[in-house]
């Protein structure tokens, strides 16, 4: 490694250190919630390492407890992860010159916070040859923090009695992720519509109500955005 690569790696790591305050409690809760939802310790560790997507992990846990079918849980994970498709499109031109193994690695470690830091720092036409080191440095800090804090939660969760209903913490953690998204008007109206449909359609078989709610939410969001900047203002 050359000096500039090391300094980009360090710079990314230092920038993402500011995100640790958010990710550490989040990881602990995910660890506790996985064990409380019925995963063995081995399964919980495997999920943290292989999936490495906190929102998707926390989103499927209430469904697992409610005995939703497998395909509904996987479909939900897909929908919650759709934001990564946007990140992937934004990041692709930055990383297109890299060898395939690098692109696999950078795809696997992508998380919201580091994406936001990176996209704020580098324009797509920025010719800086070491920017992937910045991304890697930030991502490694987040990856280690996530795995360690999840591990703490997993082994603490195994010792906490079930009647504390700590699996509810995963729903509370989802609320913490959802709130910042709602500051966009169209997103907020879409989410409200989805919540309403989810309640009305809760009796539908196979949790089809959840998928119907998401479809209606997206349609309402698109409609509100199309109606113009002042529509739906309260």
């Amino acid at each position, binding site marked *: 490694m050359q000096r500039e690569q090391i300094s980009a790696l360090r710079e990314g790591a230092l920038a993402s250190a500011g995100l640790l305050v958010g990710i550490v409690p989040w990881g602990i809760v995910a660890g506790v919630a996985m064990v409380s939802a019925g995963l*063995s310790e081995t399964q919980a560790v495997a999920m943290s390492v292989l999936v490495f997507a906190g929102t998707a992990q926390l989103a499927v846990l209430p469904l697992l407890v409610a005995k939703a079918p497998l395909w509904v849980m996987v479909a939900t994970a897909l929908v919650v992860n759709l934001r990564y498709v946007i990140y992937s499109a934004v990041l692709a031109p930055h990383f297109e010159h890299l060898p395939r193994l690098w692109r696999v690695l950078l795809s696997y470690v992508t998380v919201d916070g580091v994406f936001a830091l990176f996209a704020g720092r580098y324009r797509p036409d920025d010719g800086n040859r070491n920017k992937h080191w910045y991304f890697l440095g930030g991502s490694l800090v987040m990856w280690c923090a996530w795995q360690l804090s999840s591990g703490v939660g997993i082994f603490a969760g195994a010792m906490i009695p079930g009647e504390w209903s700590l699996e509810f913490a995963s729903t509370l953690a989802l609320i913490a992720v959802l709130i910042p998204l709602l500051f966009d008007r169209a997103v907020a109206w879409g989410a409200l519509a989805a919540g309403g449909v989810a309640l009305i359609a809760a009796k539908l078989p196979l949790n089809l109500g959840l998928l119907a709610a998401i479809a209606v939410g997206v349609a309402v969001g698109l409609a509100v955005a199309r109606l113009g900047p002042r529509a739906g203002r309260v």
Partner: protein
Amino acid sequence: MAAESWLVWALIAGMAAIAFLTRAVFILPGSHLRLPPTAERALRYAPAAALMAIIVPDIALVQGALSISIENPRLVGGLVAFALAASTRSVFATIAGGMLALTLVRQFGG
């Protein structure tokens, strides 16, 4: 409460595939494709809609029936968490406050 082992392993495998593929979809082929604005919006609205559609039934339904009552501990805990998340933006305060409200209603409510 323990879910069947094969189901959990299948879930982990499916989620791992999805988590990787959604992140790699443009990065891995080295694509220069720009997402059309409508597609980008739909991709932004879906996660928030999904989260709300998971949260609302989880706090407002008790054994499948709507329970809008101060005696529903999950509803009170969830609403406290919404208020704390909006005012503090702190993950820790949101979770701790919500769990505390849940516990208090369970102990003293009803």
